[in-house]
């Protein structure tokens, strides 16, 4: 009888852990073996194959205009920009805030912050994006603010949870051998919490790719433009291209997040 040995990802947060990592999978191959790059290569090949197929499938004038390679590339690049800028902004907000809120003196406030975060999380993204657009007008930065407002919560939650689950005996031991609180934080707590924090960042990245597709509703570009163009002009190839490229981008970013989590996690954990 084989015991289910691998610790499963926390069930409460879908997408927070590595999805379906086979039990006992070797961690070493990253960066050393071609197999680590099979997934992203597959995604890129699939994207290229789709574009080749669609460009050669007898498009009409409207479709050709919306699917011109340079236009699609521009939209993809806008999408990547939105994702990258908002993810960086999320990290800049969530990490310091999470660290601050996990200090001993702030712990009584933790449930309150998490409750507020939960309520915020239940606001529909599209509603938040449109509300901000009504308040501040449309544009790139409005969308970034909306994406950040939405993406901060999971990253913040994982930072706090990650830091809180560090065994207090270890931080005490750190203090006991004469480390300053800052050194304990930097050399004991953060390294031990890093797998959970990195899982949160990965979730944020994937979330941002998906949410950025909503940017097209407030004229901030991105691949969502292809979907909305496809729907309004009733051109299925345009619509499908937008969907396929967003999904592929999300998979690519998920792989990126997973690889980063594996490379950055301290050895010995």
């Amino acid at each position, binding site marked *: 009888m084989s015991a289910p040995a691998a610790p499963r990802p926390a*069930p409460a947060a879908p997408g927070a852990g590595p999805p379906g990592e086979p039990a006992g999978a070797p961690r070493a191959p990253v960066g050393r073996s071609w197999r680590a790059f099979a997934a992203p290569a597959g995604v890129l090949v699939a994207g290229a194959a789709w574009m080749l197929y669609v460009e050669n499938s007898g498009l009409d004038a409207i479709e050709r205009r919306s699917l011109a390679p340079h236009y699609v590339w521009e939209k993809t690049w806008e999408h990547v920009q939105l994702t990258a800028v908002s993810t960086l902004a999320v990290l800049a907000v969530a990490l310091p805030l999470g660290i601050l809120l996990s200090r001993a003196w702030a712990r009584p406030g933790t449930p309150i912050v998490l409750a507020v975060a939960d309520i915020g999380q239940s606001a529909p993204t599209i509603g938040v994006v449109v509300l901000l657009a009504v308040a501040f007008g449309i544009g790139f930065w409005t969308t970034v603010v909306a994406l950040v407002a939405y993406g901060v919560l999971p990253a913040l939650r994982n930072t706090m949870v990650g830091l809180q689950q560090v065994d207090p005996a270890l931080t005490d031991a750190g203090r006991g051998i004469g480390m300053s609180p800052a050194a304990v934080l930097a050399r004991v707590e953060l390294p031990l919490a890093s797998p959970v924090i990195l899982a949160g960042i990965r979730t944020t990245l994937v979330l941002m790719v998906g949410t950025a597709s909503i940017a097209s509703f407030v004229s901030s570009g991105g691949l969502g433009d292809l979907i909305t163009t496809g729907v309004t002009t009733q051109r299925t190839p345009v619509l499908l291209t937008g969907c396929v490229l967003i999904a592929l981008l999300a998979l690519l970013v998920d792989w990126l997040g997973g690889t980063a989590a594996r490379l950055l996690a301290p050895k010995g954990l």
Partner: protein
Amino acid sequence: MSFWEYLGDRRELLVFETWQHASMVFQTVLAALVIGVAAGIAVHRSERLATLATGAAGVAFTVPSLALLGLLITPLGLGVAPSVTALTLYSLLPIVRNTVVGLTGVDRTLVEAARGIGMTRAAVLLRIELPLAWPVILTGVRVATQLAMGVGAIAAYVSGPGLGEQIFSGLARLGGANALNMTLAGTLGIVLLALLFDGCFVVVGRLTTPRGIRD
């Protein structure tokens, strides 16, 4: 027109759309619960299948809701059909995942003890495994409900029912009268519904968790 005036003025429409939203989320999550738990039960005994199912759910999770809704327009057209399908598919992911995780997390010794005292496979599943896995499954259903609430708002883009209608009307009138009121009504309505459903889950969880494993 102030927000309160707007709410009073459009009371009937807002109540109707709120009801539609709640009913759509409830029905899709219920359908996803039945399908998801059945799928979880079917795959959890084989480690390979279970890994495959949770992996597939993880990959499917990365597909953005707008893309999924867009993809469903081609086969299903606009309106209720693509909205309900997309919501059910999205709700399935956390439920399947948590069912598998919950069932594989059940202590093997308990299952073997139950087999040892002569219970059939079906009885073990119904009386040991599912009750023990239930809190984890219920967490999955809760996540699914939250998700369906948000995706339900975007469903209005493919002419789906519910409060998303208000948000998209607000977007269409951006800068005009009532744009803010409409968006605010739609957004706050969904937040309130989500909190209401979440409260229900606390109660349901209390009532349906077996006495022995309640905390």
